[in-house]
């Protein structure tokens, strides 16, 4: 299949060259499967096989794109797409900068992220996984929801400047298991990310779910007072906040456009806690990394924050072209963010956290729902707790807090109020399926404790 894809791209390149066009051709193929659970049933079992071809035509500093969903048997349709893009670019407006059309010095292929066993996991195996993860935990009132999303995707590209190609093939799985009480409306969650079949461990999910369900069935739910709390964020919440930093923190284009809470004079300055070290590391396979970016730059470890000191901005090619910066190898579908674990080696699991001796109440927030940016220049986000929050009281008992809202700046959350990070880290899968399959995961500490954060709203029920 790889050879057929690359040969098709070469044929299309020749077609474009023969016509005197300058184009880039970006091919994406996905074979996606999703088994969705709701109310303890499989509410939907679905698959789609899609091939997308993005054609960008250039003429001087003008650029225009034509995208089609097609298949490899439709060469004529793809050629017509090239003609269309070439016609469109004549009517585009010149950019104020010269957009780069990369020249690939050599061909690149990476299938290290592909595990056939995972990509071809059967319907029956997916169902068995879920049955194991929820075994014995469902009742008439406590019902299972979730997804088992898996598949494979291929990215390939070529352009008229060079005969060399790029080729990436990845498989992935994202599993979410939710147990929710149908009348009381509480919800708990356990999630897993997999890049190979052996990463799947339904027993581990069951253990987490069982622990949370036991607490949610026995501990007292309560509305917690507004005010300041020491908060332990779970991996989902931490990953969500870091994901937003892609847009409002270290993205060079965002800074130039006024949508970042960082600025050029912050490079080399301490912005966050000295416990906070965040890197982009394409050697971390759990993040579904790109080892080469789409302009042919070999990707390497890129420090973003070292012990809280801001190291520098990332620039993808088009922004670098526009603002006269140097591209940093971040013209990719996603980065490979890793927030290093900390010194807290005794907290590796929820039971460890619950058993932690404490002098004051600690609010555990595993997940932040519907997070949004209130003020990008100040790094202020807002979101609500969801999915298994716990109030760990100073007397050692555990209560169940109704959901709360936090509206805070990332500068405060990851600043000097950071108390500790767990040594243990975990890849948290942040994939979405709004567009083409693009598996992403961020490696984060399992737990991150921040002192004295205010909650601004506290529900009076679930």
């Amino acid at each position, binding site marked *: 299949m790889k050879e057929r894809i690359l040969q098709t791209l070469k044929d299309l390149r020749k077609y474009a060259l023969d016509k005197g066009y300058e184009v880039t051709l970006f091919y994406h193929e996905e074979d996606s499967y999703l088994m969705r659970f709701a109310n303890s049933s*499989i509410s939907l079992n679905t698959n789609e096989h899609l091939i997308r071809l993005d054609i960008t035509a250039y003429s001087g500093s003008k650029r225009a794109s034509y995208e089609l969903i097609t298949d490899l048997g439709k060469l004529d349709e793809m050629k017509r797409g090239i003609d269309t893009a070439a016609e469109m670019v004549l009517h585009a407006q010149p950019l104020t900068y010269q957009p780069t059309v990369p020249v690939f010095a050599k061909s690149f292929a990476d299938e290290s992220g592909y595990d056939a066993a995972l990509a071809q996991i059967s319907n029956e195996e997916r169902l068995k996984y879920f049955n194991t993860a929820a075994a014995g935990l469902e009742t008439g009132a406590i019902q299972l929801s979730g*997804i088992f999303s898996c598949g494979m995707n291929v990215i390939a590209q070529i352009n008229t400047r060079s005969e060399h190609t790029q080729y990436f093939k990845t498989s992935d799985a994202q599993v*979410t298991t939710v147990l929710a009480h149908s009348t009381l409306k509480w919800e708990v969650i356990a999630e897993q990310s997999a890049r190979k079949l052996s990463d799947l461990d339904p027993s581990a999910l069951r253990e987490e779910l069982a622990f949370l369900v036991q607490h949610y069935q026995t501990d007292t739910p309560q509305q917690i007072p507004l005010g300041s709390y020491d908060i332990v964020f779970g991996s989902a919440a931490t990953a969500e906040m870091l994901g937003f930093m892609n847009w409002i923190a270290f993205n060079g284009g965002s800074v130039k456009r006024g949508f970042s809470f960082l600025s050029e004079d912050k490079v080399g300055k301490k912005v966050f806690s000295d416990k906070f070290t965040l890197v982009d590391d394409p050697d971390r396979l759990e993040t579904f990394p790109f080892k080469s970016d789409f302009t042919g730059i070999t990707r390497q470890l890129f420090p973003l924050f070292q012990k809280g000191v801001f190291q520098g901005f990332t620039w993808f090619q088009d922004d670098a072209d526009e603002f006269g910066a140097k591209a940093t190898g971040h013209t990719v579908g996603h980065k490979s963010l890793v927030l290093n674990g900390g010194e807290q080696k005794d907290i590796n699991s929820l039971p460890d956290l619950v058993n932690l001796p404490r002098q004051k109440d600690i609010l555990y927030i595993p997940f932040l729902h519907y997070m949004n940016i209130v003020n990008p220049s100040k790094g202020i986000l807002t979101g609500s707790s969801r999915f298994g929050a716990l109030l760990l009281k100073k007397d050692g008992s555990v209560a169940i807090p109704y959901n709360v809202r936090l509206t805070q700046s990332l500068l405060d959350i990851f600043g000097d109020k950071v108390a500790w990070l767990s040594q243990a880290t975990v890849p948290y899968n942040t994939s979405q399926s709004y567009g083409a399959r693009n598996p992403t995961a961020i490696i984060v500490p399992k737990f991150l404790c921040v002192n004295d954060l205010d909650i601004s709203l506290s529900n009076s029920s679930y």
Partner: protein
Amino acid sequence: MLDKIKQQIERLKGLGATYVDTRWYPFEEGNYLMMWNGNLKSTTSARESGVGIRVLYKGAWGFSASSDLSDLAALYDKAFDNARVAAERVTFPVRLAEKDAIQAKFESPCTIDPFTVPLADKVAFLKDLDEQLNQAGVFQRVCDMTFVRKQIVFVDSEGSEIEKLITEAFSTMQVSGLDDQGVTYERSFRPARQGNSRGWETLDRKLFGENAARIVKEMNQVRAADECPKEDRSVILLPNIMYLQTHETIGHALELDRILGYELAYAGGSFVTLEDFGKLRYGSSKLTARADATLPNSPGSFGFDDDGVPAQNTVLIDKGILVGAITGRQMVEEANAKAKRQIFKGSGGANRATSFYRVPIERMTNINIDAGQDGTLDDIVKNTERGIVLDSERSWSIGSNREQFHFGTEIGWLVEDGKITKVVKNPTYKGATVKFWNSLSAVGDQSTWQVKYVDNCGKGQPNQVMQLGHGVPVCRFDNVRIGE
């Protein structure tokens, strides 16, 4: 192609499928242009075609989709096999509410097909707009336009055959500037739907030009303004934020699949329960809300949904009392069965999918608030002792059961003793949904009513976005916390 589809549907019925439908998209075209600070950053056209197949077998759904139609039988077999496996875990077998078999066509009203408009004209429109936005104080300026045209052929095993041609045109613009601390403030314009159609003709150059000047002026006012105070006030929501308030805390809360727990793994649930219908005082007696899929100029109108059910106008909240929901064939049956009473008399015709490769789920149509009797915006302001007028969302975040919310807006104008006094920056407001809607104390008249569109409502797994609309008046809510 239609004959082949029908053959496959019959074949699967023969294998034991209770129901089969197919959405064939002979084409879906898209066109997106975006100009940022004078640079035409995006000039994109797109085309896709394919087939999505839904199979109901032993009470469970299977779905399969592809753009490769060379082996249609294999595609149908995949959908069937997906349903067969899903049927191994069924707690409440899917049943579909009755509907008539329909053979029909629907075309959304469009005077000028945007895909016949030369690219050069579209670029010229944006260039003109960009120049008008390039004023003192403007740090960033963005304007864009999106066009969609799609043909959908729906065939099902119940004898329905429906062909739809949908055309949409959307355009927005935004400016941002920096205050003396280097903090960015934005001001944007998303036009209300004009006239009765949805094509290129809806892009009104004059309207955009007038509003270009206005948003630049207002953005400069916000940059220099004081911070929004942190206190309780009446909030007067203009349509450009009222639509989102409606969307997030009425629309999503009343999607029946959410109420029944089908979105718990992702988008969330709802605080509404089946027992609430006919009883819950959702809002004050000034609140009447409806799901109206018959509004001609709005993207929430589509003729027939993706279950083959005709578009309808359904009351959701009647003078404050919850009476209806956003429904499709499957969920009304399940809701009535679980409630052990007939809450819903049939499907509300609200099932839609964003594309051939996504499965239909319950989506908002046009979720509207009826105009009221409390006059114009000026009238409402004059009758407000201590308030704030708010416009245009900047941020929004809602609790997982839609029970509470936090909104930030681009601009606020304080009101003291019936008069607008000054602009404030960083206005935010938050509240608990039911308490908020019960604090609705004034609803503007028809002169304040505007139809706003949403082109990116996200939901479902696999994820999908949907286009829809909201017809909303100016509304005032009392004792709302602002500024936090």
